[in-house]
């Protein structure tokens, strides 16, 4: 099932073809395809075991597929680790709030990419804390994350604000894509909406976002297109403006066969 190529106005940022991943007897990915376009929020939905997280892990370098190809901006890539994917410009925000709780917001934002001072002190590894602090303030303001002080420990923040720090870090350093794995799952309604707004801000700054979520209202609220994973493959790419949530669930659960999906439901 592939969308009509002549309609694809925007360039593909990530493209994956025929990804296969087996764990012993279990086939997690069975020839999965994937396409992410510039400037979009692409939601990835699917039942447990549909191959949704294996797909995302393959894109973010957490697993290496047994076969299949991944292209980043048209270049073939093969990530051996999340660090390699990150170096290539793909940032992933993990579900379990991957922050260092006792460290400050500024330190978390710059972790692993600290700015050093110039001159001798810099070559001794001394940090330019002032610059990192100022950059953090500017950056968090740009993403409209309402946190006053960048020198407070992340553990003093609410769950949503912590997620905000993780998203901001990813968006700050991603050159191509931000992947978010269930970013609103652990959050309350208000905080969840705050994070959705943040995801929109990230897209509006020009970065495409892959959003994995179980939360259908959230998916329908912000996704430009919906990638439905089923049985280790891509069942369809749906247009959230043309369908209802129950239609999406029907495709996701297999109640609606991919070949029976009306063309007007599909995203182009």
């Amino acid at each position, binding site marked *: 099932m592939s969308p009509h190529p002549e309609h694809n106005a925007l360039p593909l940022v990530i493209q994956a073809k025929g990804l296969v991943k087996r764990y012993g007897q279990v086939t997690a990915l069975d020839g999965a395809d994937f396409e992410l376009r510039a400037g979009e929020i692409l939601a990835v939905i699917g039942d447990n075991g549909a191959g949704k997280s294996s797909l995302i892990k393959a894109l973010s370098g957490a697993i290496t597929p047994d076969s299949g190809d991944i292209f980043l901006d048209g270049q073939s890539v093969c990530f051996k680790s999340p660090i390699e994917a*990150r170096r290539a410009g793909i940032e*992933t925000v993990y579900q379990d709030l991957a922050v260092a709780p006792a460290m400050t917001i500024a*330190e978390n934002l710059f*972790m692993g*990419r600290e700015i050093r001072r110039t001159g001798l002190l810099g070559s001794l590894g001394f940090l330019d804390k002032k610059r990192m602090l100022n950059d953090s303030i500017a950056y968090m303001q740009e993403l409209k994350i309402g946190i006053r002080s960048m020198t407070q420990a992340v553990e003093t923040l609410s769950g949503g604000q912590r997620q905000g720090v993780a998203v901001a870090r990813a968006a700050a350093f991603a050159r191509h894509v931000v992947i978010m794995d269930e970013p609103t799952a652990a959050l309350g309604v208000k905080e969840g909406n705050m994070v959705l707004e943040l995801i929109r801000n990230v897209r509006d700054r020009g970065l495409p976002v892959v959003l994995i979520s179980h939360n259908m209202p959230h998916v329908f609220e912000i996704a430009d297109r919906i990638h439905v994973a089923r049985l280790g493959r891509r069942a369809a790419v749906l247009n959230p403006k043309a369908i209802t949530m129950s239609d999406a669930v029907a495709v996701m659960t297999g109640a609606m066969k991919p070949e029976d999906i009306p063309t007007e439901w599909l995203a182009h």
Partner: protein
Amino acid sequence: MPSWKEHIPSIGTLGPFLALLIACTFFSFQSEQFFTGANFSLILQQIMVVGLIAIGQTLIILTAGIDLSCGMVMALGGVVMTKVAHDFGLPPSLAIGLGLTVTAGFGLLNGLLVTRIKLPPFIVTLGTMNIAFAITQLYSGSQTITDLPASMTFLGNTFNLGQTQVAYGTVLMLVCYALSWIWLRETAAGRHIYAVGNNPEATRLTGIPTHRVILMVYVLAGLCYGVASLLSVARTGVGDPNAGQTENLDAITAVVLGGTSLFGGRGVVLGSLIGAMIVGVFRNGLTLMGVSSVYQILITGILVILAVATDQLSRKGGR
């Protein structure tokens, strides 16, 4: 904008300092000799070995590890540097260098076992503690090494600061604390140690080579124990194969009393100096009061449990 409040240390950092002040006040009322410059200089000399070991121990505990071998490795370093100087007439600088190499080598061994074979630090260092002790006894034939060149015990000498005699070793210890404090606070490598202790998986995913950070920490800790060996030799004037036995647990006690969390990622190395001083002040004060040494051990034990309990409870409260 950072507010002024964030520049004031929190209760967690002030707690150990308050405990030290209370202990000092208490002992000042109990003994007239306690609150004198000479006595404080003595306390600092008594804690300089433990204080230096505690720097290395702090680094390791910040990564959520622990080093039970610290005192034994320190004793081995002391025996090696004195014995090669005594037996082969090696120049002191070379002998000291060899001692430091041995202690750093033990750190490397601990670090490799923790990072490569992924054994728990507790078990690794329990093993190397016994290994270091046995090597110390075998190499020295359980004999104390005497007749050392004067330059090896130089750090035990004192100079006058006003009316008070201060040991050079005390100054070295304070300098080491200042350097490690700045290093941990201001450099990328120092912050990475905190990051690894806070959330190793998240740290690894940011591209920080976490295993290399941990390995470096164990080697640096070994170097600290080596410097502690030198201080121990300087203070006692001999290479003592039975050194380090009280320092082993006292160093961990000092770190914990100083407010560093055994769960890793939280703490300030200067706290360990305060912690070492608390241990030293209690030992010294209770001795001046004529309290039997068994009670000193009892009180140290209670202090450790109090400190760990505070750490545990404050972490729960923070959630």
